[in-house]
């Protein structure tokens, strides 16, 4: 039985306090932390970033909500800072990028597996194969330009293989839009899933747009430009699956419920005690935010939040390797393309379709993602390694 949102009150807003020393904690270790601790830190930074983004947009459209939004948003700002600052300084922008793609693969896979709506599950699988390819391209960049092994970050949880080639992911804007769930009929988990993945992708886009120019190497600059463009497409895709008919307060309430769901999921899997304590603290803070918004919802909309919110939280996001699911999806769906809100086989794309025309234009002066990974096959210790360890032999001997 999951957490009961209406019964658990969490920490009241007045008791949610920070100071600078508290916000800036000692970071986690790049070498010693489990990859999924990093995955959770990156995702939760994205979740809090989305909380701020949404609340600013909401404030711009709703004068009467501005004081309440400003109050909650200040706390979200400091939560995001504390989480994001857990990443250590020796984690380079490219290594962090590998972490972002691991989030996009493993979290989207978990969401796709548990999504009850078959169309939405297909949307997640479609996006998943594209982020999966980004991982392969960035790993090639890391190997060939920086001389480092992406698996030091991935810790063997996630494959480094080509997915749907990034060069064919470029689509006309109308082909990135999807059907949305129906706010009155959709299962609560569908709403929580959509909010989670949209937040993660939006943060990925913003991160690549920030760090792309920090690279000196022109191929790196081009690759970030190309993949940031796909991440923009992904934000377009994932925000379009959310019912735009939801009221502003309905959306705010779902955002707070989504934050609770995500902190709760992190808490179930976290192995690092210091980080786990932060998830617990912020879960309690988010419960406080949720009940604050419940009161606003009742006051302004005169509706019962129970019509939106499940009595108990759904099963948490699974922080584990989804290798088999991803490989199966890859073998069955890599050739899918999009035509408006439908998914089609690549053979059905006409040469004059808007996405093909757009793609040809974008790739007309070369494709960075193809160039960087030309002939690339990941090997333990990078492609320069002369020999690869015989894992099976070693395992047998140790046993």
């Amino acid at each position, binding site marked *: 039985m999951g957490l009961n949102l209406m019964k658990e009150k969490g920490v009241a807003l007045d008791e949610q306090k920070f100071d600078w020393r508290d916000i800036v904690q000692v970071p986690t270790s790049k070498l010693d932390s489990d990859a999924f601790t990093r995955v959770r830190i990156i995702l939760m930074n994205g979740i809090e970033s989305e909380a701020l983004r949404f609340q600013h947009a909401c404030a711009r459209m709703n004068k009467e909500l501005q004081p309440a939004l400003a109050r909650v948003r200040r706390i979200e700002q400091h939560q995001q800072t504390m989480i994001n600052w857990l990443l250590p300084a020796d984690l380079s922008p490219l290594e962090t990028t590998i972490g972002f793609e691991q989030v996009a693969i493993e979290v989207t896979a978990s969401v796709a597996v548990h999504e009850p709506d078959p169309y939405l599950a297909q949307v997640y699988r479609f996006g998943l194969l594209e982020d999966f390819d980004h991982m392969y391209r960035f790993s090639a960049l890391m190997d060939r330009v920086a001389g480092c092994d992406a698996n030091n970050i991935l810790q063997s949880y996630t494959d480094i293989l080509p997915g749907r080639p990034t060069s064919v992911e470029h689509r006309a804007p109308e082909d990135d839009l999807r059907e949305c769930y129906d706010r009155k009929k959709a299962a609560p988990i569908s709403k929580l899933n959509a909010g989670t993945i949209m937040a993660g992708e939006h943060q990925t886009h913003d991160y690549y747009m920030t760090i792309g120019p920090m690279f000196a190497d022109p191929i790196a600059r081009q690759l970030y430009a190309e993949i940031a463009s796909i991440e923009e497409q992904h934000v377009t895709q994932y925000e379009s699956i959310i019912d735009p008919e939801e009221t502003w307060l309905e959306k705010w309430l779902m955002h707070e419920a989504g934050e609770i769901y995500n902190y709760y999921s992190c808490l179930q899997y976290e192995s690092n005690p210091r980080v786990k304590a932060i998830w617990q603290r912020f879960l309690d803070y988010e419960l406080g935010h949720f009940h604050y918004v419940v009161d606003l919802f009742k006051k302004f909309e005169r509706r019962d939040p129970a019509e939106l919110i499940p009595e108990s939280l759904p099963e948490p996001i699974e922080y584990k390797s989804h290798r088999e699911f991803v490989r199966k999806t890859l073998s069955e769906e890599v050739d899918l393309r999009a035509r408006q809100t439908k998914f089609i086989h690549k053979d059905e794309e006409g040469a004059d379709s808007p996405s093909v025309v757009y793609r040809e234009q974008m790739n007309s002066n070369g494709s960075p993602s193809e160039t960087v990974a030309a002939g690339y096959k990941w090997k333990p*210790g990078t492609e*320069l390694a002369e020999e690869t360890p015989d894992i099976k032999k070693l395992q047998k*001997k140790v046993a």
Partner: protein
Amino acid sequence: MEARESDLKQEMLVNRTGIMNNPELSAELIEGAKQTVPSSQGDATDLATIKADYLQEAPPIGSPPIMVEVSRDGKNVGQFEGLAVLLDKLGERLAFERQGTRLYEAFMQKCESLNLEDGSGPSSEELRHICQEELEHFNLLQKAITTLGGDATVQTPSADVAGVLTHGVLQIVGDPRTTIPQTLQAMLTAELVDNDGWQMLQDLATELGQDDLEEQCSRALEQEQEHLEKVREWLLSMTLDQASAMDEDDLEEDERNDEAGKEAKQPEKRTTKSPKPKSSRSAKAKKKKKK
């Protein structure tokens, strides 16, 4: 593409970072700064208090690698005192040599793309030779680590620190805007570190009674010493060439200005070329070196 190149040439290439770029604005700036009343007392040493607080709490950057305890040829390997330190430092050199290989590849591509005619810089052949030796050192270290029962794919704490250090070198070498001498300056930093790294590894192997490893380190160190000497030599001679070429350019420019001044006094124009810095060494230095 042609339009893009033309636009780039028309960009105003003037260094604007110094206060003398705009003396009037700078005077106002300095005057304003003099009036500053700091909001808190103390000085820059106060920063140490905050740092000390974090120093007390900070855990290590990472832990030593786990031993596989089985060598690459399937034999059980024993542990010995100092093995953890040795594996950490072997991991550091391995990461450095792998990055070094990529650095020399990038450097080689840069030289080949620029089609260097100047004989004082490195040739493609020389760079390829060094690059190949860096790769051989990387593979040598992989074998050495697995022979000792370590995992050659581990990023050890020292390897991680070395990676942060090398980041700046990678940025300079990979930047298409940096000149060959600027790139050589970065390579010199890498080679100096690499030379000391191999020397330390050799000493460590000697201390721990690892005779085979000591011998391998000694051979690698000899090759690295050659790399260092070459990089030093290229950097010095290219810098001297650059300085003397600038002196010659300055003389020619002075002569042209004199001629132009005789013909008519023209209003001063702002150059679109980067002002050339005066060299601290004259053309004589180059001649002296050639002798």
